[in-house]
Protein backbone atom coordinates (compact mmCIF):
# COMPACT_ATOMS: atom_id res chain seq x y z
CA UNK A 1 0.00 0.00 0.00
CA UNK A 2 2.89 2.30 0.84
CA UNK A 3 4.36 1.56 -2.59
CA UNK A 4 1.05 2.57 -4.18
CA UNK A 5 1.16 5.90 -2.36
CA UNK A 6 4.60 6.65 -3.78
CA UNK A 7 3.63 5.51 -7.26
CA UNK A 8 0.68 7.91 -7.25
CA UNK A 9 2.89 10.71 -5.93
CA UNK A 10 5.33 9.97 -8.69
CA UNK A 11 2.57 10.45 -11.29
CA UNK A 12 1.70 13.83 -9.79
CA UNK A 13 5.37 14.86 -9.90
CA UNK A 14 5.59 13.96 -13.54
CA UNK A 15 2.21 15.36 -14.59
CA UNK A 16 1.81 18.34 -12.29
CA UNK A 17 0.87 20.49 -15.28
CA UNK A 18 -1.98 18.37 -16.61
CA UNK A 19 -3.42 17.06 -13.39
CA UNK A 20 -2.94 20.03 -11.09
CA UNK A 21 -2.21 23.32 -12.82
CA UNK A 22 -4.55 22.86 -15.80
CA UNK A 23 -7.77 22.32 -13.78
CA UNK A 24 -6.67 25.01 -11.30
CA UNK A 25 -6.10 27.56 -14.03
CA UNK A 26 -9.23 26.71 -16.02
CA UNK A 27 -11.30 26.74 -12.82
CA UNK A 28 -9.83 30.11 -11.85
CA UNK A 29 -10.44 31.48 -15.34
CA UNK A 30 -14.10 30.46 -15.28
CA UNK A 31 -14.50 31.96 -11.81
CA UNK A 32 -12.89 35.19 -12.97
CA UNK A 33 -15.07 35.32 -16.10
CA UNK A 34 -18.15 35.10 -13.90
CA UNK A 35 -17.12 37.12 -10.86
CA UNK A 36 -15.52 40.07 -12.64
CA UNK A 37 -18.53 41.04 -14.83
CA UNK A 38 -20.83 40.52 -11.85
CA UNK A 39 -18.89 42.95 -9.71
CA UNK A 40 -18.49 45.31 -12.64
CA UNK A 41 -22.25 45.34 -13.12
CA UNK A 42 -22.82 45.80 -9.41
CA UNK A 43 -20.51 48.79 -9.30
CA UNK A 44 -21.30 50.39 -12.66
CA UNK A 45 -24.70 48.85 -13.34
CA UNK A 46 -26.42 52.23 -13.33
CA UNK A 47 -24.33 53.39 -16.25
CA UNK A 48 -25.53 50.54 -18.43
CA UNK A 49 -28.58 51.25 -20.53
CA UNK A 50 -31.09 48.45 -20.81
CA UNK A 51 -34.19 48.49 -23.00
CA UNK A 52 -37.11 46.73 -21.41
CA UNK A 53 -40.46 46.73 -23.23
CA UNK A 54 -39.36 49.73 -25.18
CA UNK A 55 -38.38 51.76 -22.11
CA UNK A 56 -34.77 52.71 -21.61
CA UNK A 57 -33.62 52.17 -18.05
CA UNK A 58 -30.38 51.93 -16.19
CA UNK A 59 -29.14 48.36 -15.76
CA UNK A 60 -29.16 48.36 -11.99
CA UNK A 61 -32.71 49.50 -11.83
CA UNK A 62 -33.82 47.01 -14.41
CA UNK A 63 -32.40 44.13 -12.43
CA UNK A 64 -33.98 45.43 -9.27
CA UNK A 65 -37.36 45.83 -10.91
CA UNK A 66 -37.09 42.43 -12.52
CA UNK A 67 -36.26 40.77 -9.21
CA UNK A 68 -39.07 42.62 -7.45
CA UNK A 69 -41.57 41.17 -9.89
CA UNK A 70 -40.48 37.63 -9.06
CA UNK A 71 -42.56 35.60 -6.63
CA UNK A 72 -40.75 34.18 -3.59
CA UNK A 73 -41.02 30.72 -5.19
CA UNK A 74 -39.27 31.97 -8.30
CA UNK A 75 -36.62 33.59 -6.15
CA UNK A 76 -36.02 30.31 -4.36
CA UNK A 77 -35.68 28.59 -7.70
CA UNK A 78 -33.02 31.04 -8.78
CA UNK A 79 -31.10 30.61 -5.54
CA UNK A 80 -31.44 26.87 -5.89
CA UNK A 81 -30.11 26.95 -9.42
CA UNK A 82 -27.17 29.07 -8.31
CA UNK A 83 -26.45 26.72 -5.43
CA UNK A 84 -26.44 23.69 -7.72
CA UNK A 85 -24.30 25.27 -10.40
CA UNK A 86 -21.49 22.81 -9.73
CA UNK A 87 -22.38 20.76 -12.77
CA UNK A 88 -21.82 23.86 -14.88
CA UNK A 89 -18.26 24.09 -13.58
CA UNK A 90 -17.70 20.36 -13.63
CA UNK A 91 -18.61 20.34 -17.33
CA UNK A 92 -15.67 22.20 -18.87
CA UNK A 93 -13.29 20.74 -16.30
CA UNK A 94 -14.53 17.23 -17.14
CA UNK A 95 -13.79 17.92 -20.78
CA UNK A 96 -10.32 19.11 -19.86
CA UNK A 97 -9.77 16.06 -17.64
CA UNK A 98 -10.83 13.75 -20.46
CA UNK A 99 -8.29 15.38 -22.75
CA UNK A 100 -5.48 15.17 -20.17
CA UNK A 101 -6.35 11.56 -19.27
CA UNK A 102 -6.42 10.46 -22.90
CA UNK A 103 -2.79 11.46 -23.41
CA UNK A 104 -1.76 10.40 -19.94
CA UNK A 105 -2.98 6.83 -20.48
CA UNK A 106 -1.63 6.69 -24.02
CA UNK A 107 1.87 7.82 -23.00
CA UNK A 108 2.10 6.34 -19.49
CA UNK A 109 3.69 3.10 -20.69
CA UNK A 110 5.12 4.50 -23.92
CA UNK A 111 7.28 7.45 -22.83
CA UNK A 112 9.14 5.42 -20.22
CA UNK A 113 10.16 2.99 -22.97
CA UNK A 114 11.05 5.76 -25.38
CA UNK A 115 13.45 7.48 -22.95
CA UNK A 116 14.47 4.08 -21.48
CA UNK A 117 13.67 5.26 -17.96
CA UNK A 118 11.64 2.05 -17.67
CA UNK A 119 15.00 0.42 -16.91
CA UNK A 120 15.35 2.64 -13.86
CA UNK A 121 11.81 1.95 -12.63
CA UNK A 122 12.38 -1.75 -13.20
CA UNK A 123 15.54 -1.71 -11.11
CA UNK A 124 13.38 -1.08 -8.05
CA UNK A 125 11.35 -3.70 -6.18
CA UNK A 126 8.05 -2.57 -7.67
CA UNK A 127 6.11 -5.10 -9.73
CA UNK A 128 4.73 -4.36 -13.16
CA UNK A 129 1.25 -5.03 -11.79
CA UNK A 130 1.68 -2.37 -9.11
CA UNK A 131 3.08 0.11 -11.62
CA UNK A 132 0.33 -0.32 -14.18
CA UNK A 133 -2.41 -0.35 -11.53
CA UNK A 134 -1.03 2.87 -10.08
CA UNK A 135 -1.56 4.49 -13.46
CA UNK A 136 -5.10 3.12 -13.60
CA UNK A 137 -5.76 4.48 -10.10
CA UNK A 138 -4.33 7.80 -11.14
CA UNK A 139 -6.66 8.01 -14.14
CA UNK A 140 -9.82 6.72 -12.50
CA UNK A 141 -9.57 8.11 -8.97
CA UNK A 142 -6.75 10.48 -8.06
CA UNK A 143 -6.90 12.80 -11.07
CA UNK A 144 -10.74 13.04 -11.10
CA UNK A 145 -10.66 13.90 -7.38
CA UNK A 146 -8.27 16.79 -7.97
CA UNK A 147 -10.43 18.05 -10.84
CA UNK A 148 -13.52 17.70 -8.69
CA UNK A 149 -11.88 19.76 -5.94
CA UNK A 150 -11.06 22.46 -8.49
CA UNK A 151 -14.62 22.41 -9.83
CA UNK A 152 -16.11 22.71 -6.34
CA UNK A 153 -13.73 25.50 -5.35
CA UNK A 154 -14.38 27.53 -8.48
CA UNK A 155 -18.17 26.94 -8.31
CA UNK A 156 -18.29 28.04 -4.68
CA UNK A 157 -16.21 31.10 -5.40
CA UNK A 158 -18.31 32.12 -8.41
CA UNK A 159 -21.67 31.60 -6.73
CA UNK A 160 -20.58 33.55 -3.68
CA UNK A 161 -19.17 36.33 -5.86
CA UNK A 162 -22.34 36.65 -7.96
CA UNK A 163 -24.58 36.59 -4.92
CA UNK A 164 -22.44 39.17 -3.20
CA UNK A 165 -22.53 41.37 -6.29
CA UNK A 166 -26.30 40.97 -6.57
CA UNK A 167 -26.83 41.84 -2.94
CA UNK A 168 -24.76 44.98 -3.53
CA UNK A 169 -27.49 46.24 -5.90
CA UNK A 170 -30.11 45.04 -3.47
CA UNK A 171 -31.13 41.82 -5.14
CA UNK A 172 -31.27 38.51 -3.27
CA UNK A 173 -29.15 37.89 -0.25
CA UNK A 174 -26.09 36.00 0.72
CA UNK A 175 -27.85 34.47 3.69
CA UNK A 176 -30.55 33.04 1.42
CA UNK A 177 -27.84 31.33 -0.57
CA UNK A 178 -25.97 30.10 2.46
CA UNK A 179 -29.10 28.51 3.88
CA UNK A 180 -29.90 26.73 0.65
CA UNK A 181 -29.21 23.01 1.21
CA UNK A 182 -28.32 22.51 -2.46
CA UNK A 183 -25.17 24.56 -1.91
CA UNK A 184 -23.88 21.84 0.37
CA UNK A 185 -25.17 18.64 -1.10
CA UNK A 186 -24.65 19.25 -4.81
CA UNK A 187 -20.84 18.80 -4.55
CA UNK A 188 -21.55 15.42 -3.00
CA UNK A 189 -23.88 14.58 -5.85
CA UNK A 190 -21.21 15.46 -8.38
CA UNK A 191 -18.69 13.40 -6.38
CA UNK A 192 -21.13 10.50 -6.38
CA UNK A 193 -20.67 10.26 -10.15
CA UNK A 194 -17.00 9.31 -9.70
CA UNK A 195 -17.69 5.58 -9.25
CA UNK A 196 -19.74 5.61 -12.44
CA UNK A 197 -16.80 7.23 -14.22
CA UNK A 198 -14.32 4.74 -12.77
CA UNK A 199 -16.24 1.80 -14.19
CA UNK A 200 -17.34 3.53 -17.36
CA UNK A 201 -13.85 4.67 -18.39
CA UNK A 202 -12.18 1.26 -17.88
CA UNK A 203 -12.27 0.16 -21.55
CA UNK A 204 -10.70 3.44 -22.70
CA UNK A 205 -8.04 3.38 -19.98
CA UNK A 206 -7.28 -0.27 -20.76
CA UNK A 207 -7.10 0.30 -24.50
CA UNK A 208 -4.85 3.35 -24.27
CA UNK A 209 -2.49 1.77 -21.72
CA UNK A 210 -2.28 -1.39 -23.81
CA UNK A 211 -1.50 0.44 -27.04
CA UNK A 212 1.09 2.57 -25.21
CA UNK A 213 2.75 -0.54 -23.81
CA UNK A 214 2.78 -2.24 -27.19
CA UNK A 215 3.49 0.39 -29.87
CA UNK A 216 7.08 0.77 -31.05
CA UNK A 217 6.33 4.33 -32.16
CA UNK A 218 3.41 6.72 -32.74
CA UNK A 219 0.98 5.31 -30.15
CA UNK A 220 -1.63 7.94 -31.06
CA UNK A 221 -1.81 6.74 -34.64
CA UNK A 222 -2.28 3.16 -33.49
CA UNK A 223 -4.77 3.95 -30.75
CA UNK A 224 -7.01 6.12 -32.91
CA UNK A 225 -6.18 4.87 -36.40
CA UNK A 226 -6.88 1.19 -35.85
CA UNK A 227 -10.45 1.50 -34.52
CA UNK A 228 -11.31 4.21 -37.03
CA UNK A 229 -9.93 2.18 -39.96
CA UNK A 230 -11.78 -0.93 -38.82
CA UNK A 231 -14.95 1.13 -38.51
CA UNK A 232 -14.43 2.49 -42.01
CA UNK A 233 -13.78 -1.00 -43.36
CA UNK A 234 -16.97 -2.30 -41.81
CA UNK A 235 -18.95 0.57 -43.25
CA UNK A 236 -17.41 -0.07 -46.67
CA UNK A 237 -18.14 -3.82 -46.56
CA UNK A 238 -21.65 -3.05 -45.42
CA UNK A 239 -22.20 -0.79 -48.39
CA UNK A 240 -20.40 -2.90 -50.99
CA UNK A 241 -22.23 -6.11 -50.23
CA UNK A 242 -25.45 -4.58 -48.93
CA UNK A 243 -25.15 -6.55 -45.71
CA UNK A 244 -27.61 -4.40 -43.87
CA UNK A 245 -25.48 -4.13 -40.74
CA UNK A 246 -26.11 -1.46 -38.17
CA UNK A 247 -22.67 0.12 -38.46
CA UNK A 248 -23.49 2.79 -35.91
CA UNK A 249 -23.39 0.02 -33.28
CA UNK A 250 -19.68 -0.46 -33.87
CA UNK A 251 -18.91 3.24 -33.69
CA UNK A 252 -20.94 3.71 -30.54
CA UNK A 253 -20.04 0.56 -28.65
CA UNK A 254 -16.49 -0.13 -29.75
CA UNK A 255 -14.83 3.02 -31.10
CA UNK A 256 -16.70 5.32 -28.74
CA UNK A 257 -16.12 3.16 -25.70
CA UNK A 258 -12.37 2.66 -26.18
CA UNK A 259 -11.66 6.28 -27.12
CA UNK A 260 -14.31 8.66 -25.80
CA UNK A 261 -15.27 6.94 -22.54
CA UNK A 262 -12.24 8.62 -21.02
CA UNK A 263 -14.26 11.87 -20.82
CA UNK A 264 -16.26 12.03 -17.57
CA UNK A 265 -19.96 12.33 -18.32
CA UNK A 266 -19.61 10.83 -21.79
CA UNK A 267 -22.11 8.19 -20.69
CA UNK A 268 -24.87 10.76 -21.18
CA UNK A 269 -24.19 10.96 -24.86
CA UNK A 270 -22.77 7.56 -25.72
CA UNK A 271 -24.95 5.17 -23.81
CA UNK A 272 -28.57 5.98 -24.41
CA UNK A 273 -31.03 3.38 -23.21
CA UNK A 274 -33.87 5.06 -25.08
CA UNK A 275 -34.59 8.27 -26.91
CA UNK A 276 -35.75 10.13 -23.82
CA UNK A 277 -32.32 9.69 -22.33
CA UNK A 278 -30.83 12.74 -23.98
CA UNK A 279 -29.70 15.48 -21.72
CA UNK A 280 -31.82 18.56 -22.07
CA UNK A 281 -31.36 21.96 -20.55
CA UNK A 282 -34.31 21.33 -18.28
CA UNK A 283 -32.69 18.24 -16.87
CA UNK A 284 -29.48 19.83 -15.67
CA UNK A 285 -30.58 19.42 -12.08
CA UNK A 286 -27.64 17.67 -10.49
CA UNK A 287 -29.66 14.97 -8.82
CA UNK A 288 -31.32 14.01 -12.08
CA UNK A 289 -27.97 13.66 -13.77
CA UNK A 290 -26.79 11.55 -10.90
CA UNK A 291 -29.83 9.30 -11.22
CA UNK A 292 -29.12 8.85 -14.88
CA UNK A 293 -25.46 8.14 -14.15
CA UNK A 294 -26.15 5.42 -11.64
CA UNK A 295 -28.75 3.94 -13.94
CA UNK A 296 -25.82 3.02 -16.15
CA UNK A 297 -25.08 0.20 -13.78
CA UNK A 298 -28.21 -1.67 -14.85
CA UNK A 299 -27.02 -1.49 -18.44
CA UNK A 300 -24.87 -4.50 -19.42
CA UNK A 301 -22.86 -2.21 -21.73
CA UNK A 302 -20.97 -0.69 -18.81
CA UNK A 303 -20.09 -4.09 -17.37
CA UNK A 304 -19.04 -5.65 -20.64
CA UNK A 305 -16.86 -2.60 -21.24
CA UNK A 306 -15.39 -2.88 -17.75
CA UNK A 307 -14.48 -6.54 -18.25
CA UNK A 308 -12.88 -5.75 -21.61
CA UNK A 309 -11.03 -2.87 -19.94
CA UNK A 310 -9.64 -5.12 -17.19
CA UNK A 311 -8.53 -7.66 -19.80
CA UNK A 312 -6.65 -4.96 -21.70
CA UNK A 313 -5.05 -3.70 -18.48
CA UNK A 314 -3.88 -7.26 -17.84
CA UNK A 315 -2.35 -7.38 -21.33
CA UNK A 316 -0.64 -4.04 -20.64
CA UNK A 317 0.89 -5.50 -17.45
CA UNK A 318 2.18 -8.55 -19.35
CA UNK A 319 3.58 -6.34 -22.10
CA UNK A 320 5.43 -4.18 -19.59
CA UNK A 321 6.79 -7.27 -17.87
CA UNK A 322 8.23 -8.90 -20.97
CA UNK A 323 8.71 -6.23 -23.60
CA UNK A 324 12.40 -6.18 -24.52
CA UNK A 325 13.64 -2.64 -24.80
CA UNK A 326 16.74 -3.60 -26.80
Amino acid at each position, binding site marked *: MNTMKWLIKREFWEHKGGFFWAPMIVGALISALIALPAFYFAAKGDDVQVRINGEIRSGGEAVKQFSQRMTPEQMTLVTDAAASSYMGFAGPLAGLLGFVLFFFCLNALFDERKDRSVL*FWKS*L*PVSDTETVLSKVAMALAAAPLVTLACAIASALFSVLAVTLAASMVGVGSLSALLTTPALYYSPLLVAAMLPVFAVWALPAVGWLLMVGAWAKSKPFVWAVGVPVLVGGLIAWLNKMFALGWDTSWFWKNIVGRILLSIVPGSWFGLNTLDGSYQVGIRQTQVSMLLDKSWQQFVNPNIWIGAIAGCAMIYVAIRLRRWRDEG
Partner: protein
Amino acid sequence: MSDTMNNAVNTPPVVSARGLTKRYGKTTAVDNIAFEIPPGRIIGLIGPNGSGKTTTLKAMLGLVPFEGEMKVLGKDPRTEREALMREVCFIADVAVLPRWLRVSEAIDFVAGVHPKFDRTKAERYIANTKLKPSMKVKEMSKGMIVQLHLALVMAIDAKLLVLDEPTLGLDILYRKQFYQNLLEDYFDEQKTIIVTTHQVEEIEHILSDLMFIRDGKITLSATMDEIGERFIEVMVAPDKVEAAKALKPIDERQVFGKSVFLFDGVPRGQVAALGETRSPGIADLFVATMKGTYA
Protein backbone atom coordinates in the same frame (compact mmCIF):
# COMPACT_ATOMS: atom_id res chain seq x y z
CA MET B 1 41.57 -14.49 5.10
CA SER B 2 40.99 -18.24 5.23
CA ASP B 3 37.52 -17.53 6.61
CA THR B 4 36.67 -15.55 3.53
CA MET B 5 37.96 -18.33 1.35
CA ASN B 6 35.84 -20.87 3.17
CA ASN B 7 32.81 -18.66 2.82
CA ALA B 8 33.39 -18.42 -0.85
CA VAL B 9 33.45 -22.18 -1.11
CA ASN B 10 30.52 -22.95 1.16
CA THR B 11 28.04 -20.24 0.32
CA PRO B 12 25.86 -20.89 -2.71
CA PRO B 13 26.73 -18.95 -5.86
CA VAL B 14 25.14 -15.56 -6.41
CA VAL B 15 24.42 -16.41 -10.00
CA SER B 16 24.40 -19.81 -11.62
CA ALA B 17 23.41 -20.55 -15.19
CA ARG B 18 23.13 -23.80 -17.14
CA GLY B 19 22.19 -24.11 -20.78
CA LEU B 20 21.33 -20.43 -20.87
CA THR B 21 20.15 -19.61 -24.38
CA LYS B 22 18.45 -16.57 -25.82
CA ARG B 23 17.30 -16.31 -29.40
CA TYR B 24 15.98 -13.26 -31.22
CA GLY B 25 14.24 -14.72 -34.20
CA LYS B 26 16.91 -16.63 -36.11
CA THR B 27 19.92 -15.08 -34.41
CA THR B 28 21.20 -16.63 -31.22
CA ALA B 29 22.37 -13.91 -28.87
CA VAL B 30 23.38 -16.23 -26.05
CA ASP B 31 24.28 -19.76 -27.00
CA ASN B 32 23.93 -22.44 -24.35
CA ILE B 33 26.28 -20.97 -21.76
CA ALA B 34 26.97 -22.08 -18.20
CA PHE B 35 28.69 -20.19 -15.42
CA GLU B 36 28.73 -19.65 -11.68
CA ILE B 37 29.50 -16.46 -9.82
CA PRO B 38 30.45 -16.80 -6.14
CA PRO B 39 29.71 -13.99 -3.66
CA GLY B 40 32.20 -11.26 -2.84
CA ARG B 41 33.63 -10.93 -6.34
CA ILE B 42 33.88 -8.16 -8.90
CA ILE B 43 33.42 -9.74 -12.28
CA GLY B 44 34.22 -8.04 -15.55
CA LEU B 45 32.05 -9.31 -18.38
CA ILE B 46 33.95 -8.33 -21.47
CA GLY B 47 32.99 -8.80 -25.09
CA PRO B 48 32.70 -6.98 -28.40
CA ASN B 49 29.48 -5.24 -29.46
CA GLY B 50 26.70 -7.72 -30.09
CA SER B 51 28.50 -10.56 -28.31
CA GLY B 52 25.60 -11.22 -25.94
CA LYS B 53 26.81 -9.61 -22.73
CA THR B 54 23.88 -7.23 -22.33
CA THR B 55 21.47 -10.04 -23.15
CA THR B 56 23.06 -12.22 -20.48
CA LEU B 57 22.68 -9.42 -17.94
CA LYS B 58 19.08 -8.81 -19.00
CA ALA B 59 18.28 -12.47 -18.52
CA MET B 60 19.89 -12.30 -15.08
CA LEU B 61 17.71 -9.31 -14.17
CA GLY B 62 14.51 -10.91 -15.40
CA LEU B 63 14.09 -8.35 -18.16
CA VAL B 64 13.85 -10.86 -20.99
CA PRO B 65 12.57 -14.43 -21.24
CA PHE B 66 15.20 -17.10 -21.98
CA GLU B 67 15.73 -20.84 -22.34
CA GLY B 68 17.71 -22.93 -19.92
CA GLU B 69 18.24 -22.61 -16.21
CA MET B 70 19.36 -19.67 -14.19
CA LYS B 71 19.24 -18.85 -10.51
CA VAL B 72 20.11 -15.46 -9.11
CA LEU B 73 20.42 -15.52 -5.31
CA GLY B 74 18.49 -18.78 -5.45
CA LYS B 75 15.61 -17.24 -7.36
CA ASP B 76 14.40 -17.64 -10.92
CA PRO B 77 14.50 -14.15 -12.45
CA ARG B 78 11.59 -15.02 -14.73
CA THR B 79 9.10 -15.82 -12.01
CA GLU B 80 10.47 -14.15 -8.87
CA ARG B 81 11.56 -10.82 -10.24
CA GLU B 82 9.97 -8.56 -7.62
CA ALA B 83 11.53 -10.44 -4.70
CA LEU B 84 14.83 -10.48 -6.55
CA MET B 85 14.87 -6.73 -7.03
CA ARG B 86 15.02 -6.25 -3.27
CA GLU B 87 18.47 -7.88 -3.31
CA VAL B 88 19.68 -6.88 -6.75
CA CYS B 89 20.43 -3.44 -8.10
CA PHE B 90 21.41 -2.37 -11.57
CA ILE B 91 22.46 0.57 -13.65
CA ALA B 92 21.45 -0.45 -17.13
CA ASP B 93 22.80 2.46 -19.06
CA VAL B 94 23.79 6.05 -18.50
CA ALA B 95 20.97 8.58 -18.58
CA VAL B 96 17.99 6.32 -17.99
CA LEU B 97 16.72 8.46 -15.14
CA PRO B 98 13.50 10.21 -16.21
CA ARG B 99 14.16 13.79 -17.25
CA TRP B 100 11.45 15.35 -15.11
CA LEU B 101 12.70 13.79 -11.86
CA ARG B 102 14.22 16.04 -9.18
CA VAL B 103 17.04 14.91 -6.92
CA SER B 104 14.79 15.21 -3.85
CA GLU B 105 12.00 13.29 -5.57
CA ALA B 106 14.36 10.52 -6.61
CA ILE B 107 15.50 10.08 -3.02
CA ASP B 108 11.94 10.27 -1.64
CA PHE B 109 10.69 7.72 -4.14
CA VAL B 110 13.43 5.14 -3.68
CA ALA B 111 13.22 5.59 0.10
CA GLY B 112 9.47 5.03 -0.18
CA VAL B 113 9.54 1.82 -2.22
CA HIS B 114 12.87 0.19 -1.34
CA PRO B 115 13.12 -1.51 2.07
CA LYS B 116 16.93 -1.58 1.92
CA PHE B 117 17.54 2.05 1.02
CA ASP B 118 19.61 4.14 3.43
CA ARG B 119 18.48 7.71 2.92
CA THR B 120 21.27 9.38 4.91
CA LYS B 121 23.88 7.52 2.91
CA ALA B 122 22.46 8.78 -0.37
CA GLU B 123 22.22 12.33 0.95
CA ARG B 124 25.77 12.22 2.27
CA TYR B 125 27.03 11.11 -1.11
CA ILE B 126 25.05 13.79 -2.94
CA ALA B 127 26.38 16.47 -0.58
CA ASN B 128 29.83 15.74 -2.03
CA THR B 129 28.69 16.56 -5.55
CA LYS B 130 27.33 19.63 -7.27
CA LEU B 131 23.82 18.19 -7.23
CA LYS B 132 21.12 20.27 -5.53
CA PRO B 133 17.89 18.73 -4.15
CA SER B 134 15.68 20.84 -6.42
CA MET B 135 17.66 20.02 -9.55
CA LYS B 136 15.90 18.14 -12.35
CA VAL B 137 17.61 15.40 -14.33
CA LYS B 138 17.12 17.37 -17.57
CA GLU B 139 19.27 20.17 -16.12
CA MET B 140 22.15 17.81 -15.36
CA SER B 141 25.18 16.81 -17.39
CA LYS B 142 25.63 13.14 -18.17
CA GLY B 143 28.24 12.87 -15.43
CA MET B 144 25.90 14.38 -12.86
CA ILE B 145 23.10 11.99 -13.83
CA VAL B 146 25.43 9.08 -13.18
CA GLN B 147 26.43 10.60 -9.84
CA LEU B 148 22.77 10.74 -8.84
CA HIS B 149 22.13 7.21 -10.04
CA LEU B 150 25.19 5.94 -8.23
CA ALA B 151 24.12 7.75 -5.04
CA LEU B 152 20.78 5.96 -5.18
CA VAL B 153 22.32 2.59 -5.95
CA MET B 154 25.10 2.76 -3.36
CA ALA B 155 22.60 3.58 -0.62
CA ILE B 156 20.80 0.31 -1.33
CA ASP B 157 22.18 -2.61 0.62
CA ALA B 158 21.93 -5.07 -2.26
CA LYS B 159 23.71 -8.42 -2.57
CA LEU B 160 24.29 -8.10 -6.30
CA LEU B 161 25.00 -4.98 -8.33
CA VAL B 162 24.91 -5.18 -12.11
CA LEU B 163 26.49 -2.38 -14.11
CA ASP B 164 26.08 -2.39 -17.88
CA GLU B 165 28.39 0.21 -19.43
CA PRO B 166 27.83 2.51 -16.44
CA THR B 167 30.38 5.10 -17.53
CA LEU B 168 29.72 5.24 -21.26
CA GLY B 169 30.10 8.78 -22.55
CA LEU B 170 31.60 10.18 -19.35
CA ASP B 171 34.91 11.98 -19.18
CA ILE B 172 37.83 10.37 -17.41
CA LEU B 173 37.36 12.34 -14.17
CA TYR B 174 33.82 11.05 -13.72
CA ARG B 175 34.87 7.53 -14.73
CA LYS B 176 37.70 7.36 -12.18
CA GLN B 177 35.46 8.86 -9.49
CA PHE B 178 32.74 6.35 -10.28
CA TYR B 179 34.86 3.26 -9.74
CA GLN B 180 36.68 4.76 -6.79
CA ASN B 181 33.39 5.43 -4.99
CA LEU B 182 32.18 1.98 -5.82
CA LEU B 183 35.26 0.35 -4.40
CA GLU B 184 35.72 2.51 -1.32
CA ASP B 185 32.16 3.12 -0.16
CA TYR B 186 30.20 0.22 -1.49
CA PHE B 187 31.98 -3.04 -2.12
CA ASP B 188 32.55 -5.65 0.63
CA GLU B 189 32.74 -9.45 0.89
CA GLN B 190 28.96 -9.74 1.12
CA LYS B 191 28.44 -7.99 -2.16
CA THR B 192 29.00 -9.02 -5.74
CA ILE B 193 29.44 -6.67 -8.66
CA ILE B 194 29.14 -7.60 -12.32
CA VAL B 195 30.33 -4.94 -14.71
CA THR B 196 30.55 -4.63 -18.48
CA THR B 197 32.55 -1.90 -20.13
CA HIS B 198 34.62 -1.14 -23.17
CA GLN B 199 37.11 0.83 -21.12
CA VAL B 200 38.78 -2.37 -19.98
CA GLU B 201 42.05 -0.82 -18.79
CA GLU B 202 40.24 1.38 -16.31
CA ILE B 203 38.62 -1.44 -14.37
CA GLU B 204 41.42 -3.96 -14.73
CA HIS B 205 42.83 -3.27 -11.26
CA ILE B 206 39.50 -3.56 -9.43
CA LEU B 207 38.34 -6.85 -10.96
CA SER B 208 38.66 -10.16 -9.17
CA ASP B 209 37.30 -12.25 -12.02
CA LEU B 210 37.13 -12.01 -15.76
CA MET B 211 34.69 -13.44 -18.23
CA PHE B 212 35.15 -13.03 -21.98
CA ILE B 213 32.13 -13.53 -24.15
CA ARG B 214 32.08 -13.83 -27.92
CA ASP B 215 29.29 -14.75 -30.32
CA GLY B 216 27.09 -15.74 -27.43
CA LYS B 217 29.64 -18.08 -25.90
CA ILE B 218 31.99 -17.71 -22.95
CA THR B 219 35.52 -17.92 -24.30
CA LEU B 220 37.36 -17.30 -21.07
CA SER B 221 36.33 -17.44 -17.44
CA ALA B 222 38.96 -17.17 -14.74
CA THR B 223 40.03 -15.25 -11.66
CA MET B 224 42.54 -12.50 -12.17
CA ASP B 225 45.13 -14.59 -10.26
CA GLU B 226 44.63 -17.51 -12.61
CA ILE B 227 44.95 -15.22 -15.58
CA GLY B 228 48.23 -13.88 -14.20
CA GLU B 229 49.52 -17.46 -14.04
CA ARG B 230 48.15 -18.70 -17.32
CA PHE B 231 49.01 -15.92 -19.72
CA ILE B 232 52.52 -14.70 -20.39
CA GLU B 233 53.72 -12.25 -22.97
CA VAL B 234 57.27 -12.48 -24.23
CA MET B 235 59.27 -10.07 -26.36
CA VAL B 236 61.37 -12.31 -28.57
CA ALA B 237 64.54 -11.45 -30.47
CA PRO B 238 64.46 -12.39 -34.22
CA ASP B 239 66.78 -15.38 -33.75
CA LYS B 240 64.40 -17.06 -31.28
CA VAL B 241 61.15 -16.56 -33.21
CA GLU B 242 61.09 -20.13 -34.52
CA ALA B 243 61.57 -21.55 -31.03
CA ALA B 244 58.75 -19.32 -29.77
CA LYS B 245 56.41 -20.43 -32.54
CA ALA B 246 57.06 -24.05 -31.63
CA LEU B 247 55.46 -23.42 -28.23
CA LYS B 248 52.16 -22.52 -30.00
CA PRO B 249 51.56 -18.91 -29.00
CA ILE B 250 47.93 -17.75 -29.17
CA ASP B 251 48.92 -14.40 -30.59
CA GLU B 252 51.78 -12.59 -32.24
CA ARG B 253 52.32 -8.89 -32.83
CA GLN B 254 55.19 -6.62 -33.76
CA VAL B 255 56.62 -3.96 -31.44
CA PHE B 256 59.68 -1.93 -32.56
CA GLY B 257 60.75 -4.63 -34.94
CA LYS B 258 60.56 -7.33 -32.33
CA SER B 259 57.90 -10.02 -32.08
CA VAL B 260 55.71 -10.19 -29.01
CA PHE B 261 54.16 -13.60 -28.41
CA LEU B 262 51.28 -14.39 -26.10
CA PHE B 263 51.24 -17.82 -24.48
CA ASP B 264 48.41 -19.57 -22.72
CA GLY B 265 49.38 -22.19 -20.14
CA VAL B 266 52.98 -22.63 -21.15
CA PRO B 267 55.27 -23.02 -18.07
CA ARG B 268 56.97 -19.77 -17.17
CA GLY B 269 60.45 -21.28 -17.10
CA GLN B 270 60.16 -22.51 -20.68
CA VAL B 271 58.99 -19.10 -21.90
CA ALA B 272 61.50 -17.07 -19.90
CA ALA B 273 64.33 -18.52 -21.98
CA LEU B 274 62.94 -16.81 -25.08
CA GLY B 275 63.22 -13.25 -23.85
CA GLU B 276 61.74 -10.64 -21.57
CA THR B 277 58.39 -11.76 -20.07
CA ARG B 278 55.50 -9.78 -18.66
CA SER B 279 51.86 -10.31 -17.69
CA PRO B 280 49.56 -9.09 -20.45
CA GLY B 281 46.86 -6.52 -19.75
CA ILE B 282 43.23 -7.40 -20.19
CA ALA B 283 43.09 -5.21 -23.26
CA ASP B 284 45.90 -7.20 -24.91
CA LEU B 285 44.26 -10.47 -23.97
CA PHE B 286 40.95 -9.22 -25.26
CA VAL B 287 42.34 -8.12 -28.60
CA ALA B 288 44.26 -11.39 -28.97
CA THR B 289 41.31 -13.63 -28.23
CA MET B 290 38.74 -11.63 -30.15
CA LYS B 291 40.67 -11.37 -33.42
CA GLY B 292 38.48 -11.66 -36.47
CA THR B 293 35.27 -10.83 -34.66
CA TYR B 294 34.24 -8.10 -37.08
CA ALA B 295 35.96 -9.62 -40.12
